[in-house]
Each structure stands twice: as C-alpha cells, then as structure tokens.
C-alpha cells in the first residue's frame, strides 16, 4: 500500500479526478511531508500552506460539482523562486530581493493556476540561478536527499530535492546552462529543459535572456510531459516565445513507455569521448550501459561530430554573464527590494552602489564583473562578439547532426553529486558540472535528463537532446529507458527520517 506521496503526478491526478482522493488530502500529505523532512533538506524558501489548501479545496469543489478539470488538476507543485508569483515572496534566493512580494504572476504560474494546481511554495536555488550546487543561495544550503553531505545540484537544487524527497510530486525549474537537468541527474529525478521559446519567460527573473528556459521537474517522463503541456505554448507577452503548436510530449512519453525504439536514430557525440577520461568512471559506465540498453530497445546508435561543442563552456561564460550584467542592473534599491546606505549621508550613486554591494552574493558579483568586462569598449568584439559567432557554430553542429539522427544522447553531468564545499573554491571546477548540458542551451533545443543508474550509490542521469521543437522525441527516448527499470530510480531514494 503506497503512501500518497509515493504516487506519481499522473496517478494523483487520476485519483483526484475519479474521486478516490481529494486534492486537499493529497496537498495535505505533501505539506505534512514538507513539515516532516524539510527541516533537514531545506528545499523550500517559502511554503504557502494556506494558499495551497485553498486551491485544493476549490478543485475538490469543482470536481464534486461535476466540472471537467484539466489533466493535473489538484496535483500540488513547487515553484523555483526565480519565477514570479503574485502575493508570494519571490527572491531568486538573493538578499537584494528579500521581502519583495510580486504584484503579478509569471505566465507559467497563470497557467499552473488555470490548471488548478495547488502551489506548495517556492524552492531554493543558487542566487539568480547562477551556480551548480545551490550553495550560492543567499539564504541556506539545500541537502541532497540521497546523501545529506552532498549538494543537490544547481541552480535548481531546491526543486530537484523537493521532488526527490517526495515533498512535491512536481516542480518548476529553470534551465540556463543545465539548472534543471544537472540537479535532476544528481538527485535521481527527471528534468526537462524545453525548446527555448516553447515556454514563456514572462515573469521568469532573467539571468541570461537568450538562454533561460523554464521547465518541469518530476520523478518520471510522463509526469514531466503532463506538466510540460500545462505550461507550454505561445505567449504574446514574451517576444521570444514561439507561435507554434506544443510538441505532443505526453503522447511521446506514453509511446516511449512501450519500450520500442525501432527506427529511432540516436547520436553519440564523438567530441565528448575525450572528456570521459576526466569524468567519473561510474558516470561513464552508466552512460555506456544506457547506450547498450537503447540499442537493445531497437534504436540505431550513430556517432555524430560536433566539433564546436568543445567551446560551449567558455562561450557560455561570456554570453550568459554579459546578459546577466545588464539584466541585473535593475536591482539598484530605487524601486523595490533591498536599499542600503539610505541614511541621508550618501549620494544616490553611493546608495545604488552600497545596495548592490550588500545585496549580491559572490558568484553573482563574479558574473556581473565578467559580463561587464566582456561587453566593454575595446573588448566586446573579442569576447561577446566572438562568443556569438561560436554560438552560431554550435547551432550549426546541432542542425547538421539532426540531419543524421533523431536525438543525441550524452551523460547529463560528468560527476555525481559532490560534497559541500568541494568546488566552491574553484569556479571552473563548478562550471564543469554543466559541460554536457550547455550546448543545448546555446542551440535552443530541448534536453531532458532521465535517471539511469547509480555510481557509488549516487544517482546518474542520461541526457537526451532533440531538435528545436522536437521535445517529443526526448520524452519518448527517456520514457523508453524508464521502461527498462523494474522500479523507477527516483523511487529507490533512501527513506528520510521525519523529524
């Protein structure tokens, strides 16, 4: 007899819709779980018990009244704190936004509310989504439910840990260079970065506008696909949003669950091979086993060449900080959030400067400085301009590869969850966590991370990358791999002691 919190989102939705469970019961179960274990895990920055239960009661009333409800109605969800929620504190895990209550909802939050999903609260993250371990949250660290001495990945460590610890069946993450997929990989959860433009960024606190993409976090492909379809689709308030039909990801996840990949061509990137020497052996082994597994499911494995991927990481660390240096300029203490030094003794310029000094953490400052430098006169062509050219080459590598294969597979991240403090001393070692995820962001296509095994007891993820608007194939391949597991990897996480 499984507990409510052990059910998948799809199961919960069906139970609620068909009257076997109320949304209030389901929501209460997750809120109780948060109360029991989040004191240890610290995945949430803010929990909205009353708001979640109020929505749950509305859903229950609607169902009782015989209304038709959406596919995830009544299923509670956690939202990364970089997504703006009306009336709920939103800080992007930064001191500079401490206490700010947004007067509006992000488009994806509007859609979640329209789908009648109770919002449990806001999850922890690296400040402004800059980091790969959630150690750069200005508030506290989030612990990995698999081993509380280790990081839960980042920047979306809170969303991943919340789902891994069954404090939420679903969560929203955002992915700029891997912030959904890498936490997914290291916490044994499923994470999808949709096609850039497939999901509205309106109300998503910008880190790097040309890369940021919100997406689902879940325990399996089908749950993520259901959430993907709730939040996706054209938004006239986001000029970079794509006006095209949402890829049929739910159907693809269901097809994939049949475990048949006959006729599907999957690419492995030749240029990644040389990086495997520096990756963890257990991660590489799990990847190779998955490749064999996919071949057994009928997929044809093809080597593809993407020579520019080698430059993806440095390119990213020019483009993303450049955009961030401009996007974060608005945090100046003038209109909202923290204001420091406003004592009548400091000039306006000094107040702005003191506010930013006090309000931003070390990684955010590092990237603002990096980006400001990369855009400055005399350097912009050599840094930002050159990076844009390389970005074009990376896109071309993908486009060429997708003339040969339907999807590309790789490890999600070169190493499993590391111990706290292991990489904060050397930014580059931290940045390597996103080695395999960044190319997809540079290109704009979809990528999912699906749990495929363990290395020394810690989860390992496989990444499936698709062509722009080909999100469905990534779900299909991931679901096919899940079909080979007797028990979902996410369900083998150590049971946490409630306290």
């Amino acid at each position, binding site marked *: 007899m499984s507990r409510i919190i052990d059910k998948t989102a799809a199961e919960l939705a069906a139970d609620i819709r068909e009257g076997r469970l109320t949304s209030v019961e389901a929501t209460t179960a997750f809120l109780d779980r948060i109360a029991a274990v989040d004191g240890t895990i610290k995945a949430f920055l803010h929990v909205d018990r009353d708001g979640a239960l109020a929505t749950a009661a509305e859903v229950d009333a609607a169902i009782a009244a015989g209304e038709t409800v959406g596919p995830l109605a009544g299923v509670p969800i956690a939202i990364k704190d970089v997504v703006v929620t009306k009336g709920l504190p939103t800080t992007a895990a930064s001191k500079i936004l401490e206490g700010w209550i947004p*007067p509006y909802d992000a488009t994806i939050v509007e859609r979640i509310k329209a789908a009648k999903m109770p919002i449990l609260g806001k999850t922890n993250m690296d400040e402004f989504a800059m980091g790969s371990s959630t150690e750069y949250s200005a508030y506290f660290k989030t612990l990995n439910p698999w081993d509380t001495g280790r990081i839960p990945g980042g920047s979306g460590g809170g969303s991943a840990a919340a789902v891994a610890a069954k404090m939420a069946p679903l969560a929203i993450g955002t992915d700029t260079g891997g912030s959904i997929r890498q936490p997914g990989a290291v916490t044994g959860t499923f994470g999808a970065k949709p096609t850039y433009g497939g999901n509205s960024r309106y109300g998503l606190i*910008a880190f790097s506008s040309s890369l940021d993409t919100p997406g689902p976090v879940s325990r399996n492909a089908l749950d993520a696909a259901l959430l993907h379809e709730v939040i996706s689709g054209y938004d006239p308030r986001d*000029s*970079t949003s794509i006006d095209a039909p949402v890829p049929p990801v739910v159907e693809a996840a269901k097809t994939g669950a049949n475990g048949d990949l006959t006729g599907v061509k999957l690419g492995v990137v030749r240029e990644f091979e040389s990086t495997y020497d520096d990756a963890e052996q257990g991660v590489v082994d799990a990847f190779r086993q998955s490749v064999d597994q996919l071949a057994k499911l009928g997929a044809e494995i093809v080597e593809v060449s993407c020579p520019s991927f080698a430059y993806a990481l440095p390119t990213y660390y020019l483009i993303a900080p*450049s955009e961030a240096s*401009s996007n974060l300029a*608005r945090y100046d203490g003038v*209109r909202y959030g923290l204001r420091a030094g406003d004592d009548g003794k400091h000039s*306006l310029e000094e107040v702005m400067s003191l506010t930013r000094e006090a309000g931003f953490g070390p990684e955010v400052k590092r990237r603002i400085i990096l980006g400001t430098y990369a855009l400055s006169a005399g350097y912009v062509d050599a840094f930002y301009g050159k990076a844009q050219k390389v970005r074009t080459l990376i896109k071309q590598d993908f486009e060429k590869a997708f003339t040969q294969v339907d999807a590309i597979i790789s490890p999600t991240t070169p190493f499993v969850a590391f111990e706290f403090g292991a990489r904060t001393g050397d930014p580059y070692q931290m940045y390597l966590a996103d080695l395999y995820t960044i190319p997809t962001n540079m290109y704009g296509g979809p990528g999912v991370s699906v749990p495929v095994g363990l290395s020394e007891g810690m989860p390992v993820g496989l990444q499936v990358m698709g062509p722009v608007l080909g999100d469905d194939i990534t779900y299909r391949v991931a679901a096919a791999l899940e079909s080979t597991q007797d028990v979902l990897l996410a369900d083998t996480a150590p049971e946490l002691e409630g306290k």
Partner: protein
Amino acid sequence: MTKLNTFEQAVATYEPVLGLETHIELDTKTKMFCGCATTFGAEPNTQVCPVCLALPGALPVANRAAVEATIKIGLALNCTIASWTRFARKNYFYPDMPKNFQTSQYEEPLCEDGYVDVVVDGEVHRVEIERVHLEEDTGKTLHVGGTTGRIHGATESLVDYNRAGIPLVEIVTRPVPGTGALAPEVARAYTAELRDIVRSLGVSDVRMEQGSLRCDVNLSLNRPGEEWGTRTETKNVNSLRSVERAVRYEVRRQSALLDAGERIFQETRHFHEATGETSPGRSKEEATDYRYFPEPDLAVMEPSREWVEELRASLPELPRKRRERLQAEWSLGDKDMQSVVNADAVELIEATVAAGTTPSGAVKWWLGELSRRANESGEELAALAITPAQVAELQGMVDDGRLNDKLARQVIDGVLAGEGSPADVAAKRGLEVVSDTGALEAAVDEAIAANPAVADKIRGGTHAAAGVLIGAVMKATKGQADAGTVRQIILDKLS
C-alpha cells in the same frame, strides 16, 4: 572666462560645423514596450506597469504602431528603411531609467541615409540624415532641495515613471559643414522643417515646450582648410529660437577660446533660456561606456517591402509640397513665401485664410505687425495671445470699413492684453471708424472752410491736393474715419 567674440568676428575667422540630434516622442496610445497609456500630464506614477517599472521578470513587446510611425518618418526624410533591424541595450545607471539600460538601437537602426532640404536666404542647404532609430524615453527626475534643480546639492530626488517607456524617435544628422554665418538659421530651419514634417505625418504633436520634440545641438569650429574641431553637445534646447541662440552662443564662445589658444573640450553643455548661454554638463571624456549589445528579449524586426511601400504610398502631402501649393494659392512671390516660412507662419496664415480672410490680409498681419510684436517680446509667433480666427476677424473689420489699419493696431494691443476678441476690444475701447456721414460731412465742411486755397485747387481739378483736407479730417476725428470715405465726400463737395 574669456570675453566672447561677436558672432560676426567669429564667423569671419572660423567655419562652424553643425550636427543635430533630435528626439521626438511619438503620440502612440500606448508605450513602446508595454500597454501603459501615454497621456501627458497625468498624476505621477499612475501610467506604469511591471514592464515599464522593470519589475523582476517583466519582458518588453515592441509596439507596432511606433515602428510604423518611425518608418513613416524615415520615408518622409528620404531614408532607406532597413529590411533587418533590431533593438540594442544601452547600459548605464540612472534612477529615472528603471532597467538601468535603455532599449534603443545601435548598429542596425530602422532608417538610414536620408536628407532634408532647408532654404535659408533663398539658398538650399541639404542636411543629411545619418539615421532614424526607435528607442524608449526615460522617466522624469525632480531634484529637490538644491539651488540648481540638478542632482548636485539636492537632498531628495523624486522620480515619475509615467514617461518611462514612451516611444522616442531619435533623428541624427551627419555633420553639416559649409553653412558659415548662416549656421544658426540653418539649425533653426532644419529643426522647424523636421517638426513640420513629423507634424504632417500625424505621429507626434512635436511640441517643443512640452518636450515632445527635444533638440541637442552639436557644434565645432575650424579655421578654413583645417580639420574639423572638437565638438560640444548642447542638450535639450527647447524652442526654435533657442536652437538658433544656442548655435550663435557656442560659435561666439568657442571662437573666443580658440583665439586665446585654448582647447575645446568634448563635453555636454546645458542651454539657459534666460541668458541664452550654455554651461558645461558632464564631460564625455570621462563618460560612460554604454556596453551596447543586441536586446535578447526582443525579436529581430524585418519590415516587409510591401509594408514599407504601403506606408510610402500613405504618406500625406509633406510640408515642402504643401508650401509650394500654398504659395501658388496665396499668389506670393518666392521672397515673400520665404519670409512666411522663416517667420514660422505657414500654419498660422493657412488657418487665418481658412477662417475666412484673404491670403494677402493674413500675410500682412502675421508678417507685419504681429511679427514685430513677437520680436519685441522675444516670443515665437505662434505663442502670441492672438488666434488665426481673431486675425481673420480683425481683417474682416478692416475690409468692412469698420477699422482702418491704425485702429486695427490698437485693437491688436487689446487682444494681446487679453481684452477679448477684436470686436470686443473695438467696442470697449471705442475704436470703430466714424461711419456717421453727417459727422464726417461736418468735419469736411470745417476743413474746407479752414483751407480755402486748397479747396480752390481741388475745384480746379488738382485732386491730389485732397490729401491735405483728408489729413485735417482724420486729425479732427482722431483717426477714426475711413480715409476713402472722407476723400469721396471731399471730391463730391468740390466738383
């Protein structure tokens, strides 16, 4: 401070090079990147939303009407319209700029390579347009507690974001050399022409006094045959007259410095309406690196050629064509028409004619008496407290014989003093022409009796001598008689 040269001394030694940057607020219903209203003069911070306040997470969406208006301006200025254009971020910190970057355009403006021909002293000066681009306005800052109204010395700064995000079109000329002593007039004529063109397009109310047309005047001097000098940029010059004065002042100031062997600093200067002088603002040499880069939140724009041609076909009659038409309709010579244009009186005269008077009557008042009054008070003609309808009424009274020119000038005094319409003023001040024939005949009889020799001459056929008697009658009636009527009575009596 070095003593200023006279303008004549200055242009005898140096050649000015002009450059003009003009910002025009479009009068679209909504802002450039959000749906907020753009009404002028609303309560501070009532026309704002997450986008124009730059709340975290908000995103811009470009206003198509603003893009369309900018293309129209570009077409009217003979520009090429880009087939691929995008916005860029201009990064700098200022509290009236919510995002701390301005969404503008950089290397890919919407319109490029145009020109405007302006006529000064019968000579055509072609002012080349480098670019016309679209951007957003900033908010307005009010610095409280200082003496200058500027941020230095202020104790508080209040910000109104209603203006933040209003679409702004920036029109930049190429450097304009070769205008010599006419530089101030060319600068003024260009600004007036630009204003008239934009007004004719109906995309902005281009009111300099409300800041919907703002002018930055760039000026440098060089000796003939030498390279162009270092330029200064005088900001926010807010009337046509100020444009002219700012150029004149900078020519005088810079020439004096150059004569003294000093160098000109590349700097921003402020124009002072009261004194006609400029003073230094922030120095460009220590100025901001704007770190421009393409705006990743907005899609690239690719105006289709069909759309551009549709807009070209929809352009109204432009001021130059209109002036040619009006010149013909009004039967004015080139020189007179030029005077009308220089006096910025085309619209005033057109409106006066439309109100029912003859073109010659309208031209006479606006270029004559009213221009004189405007010069005396240092105002623009259009700013005088008399409307075209009132001028038409005035001329109508002259045509009817109720006023003569001398009385009409006194009526103008009253209208400008706010005493009401010309009819009101004439009635209140008792300025009507004496049309009582009995009274006039009595006055004529008196004049004949007082000047028997003159009367004899007229009787003898020398009608020109009637002038003496007319003068006497006018004197007797304090000018309130119609000279023509008086003359007729005299001739009737003496023939």
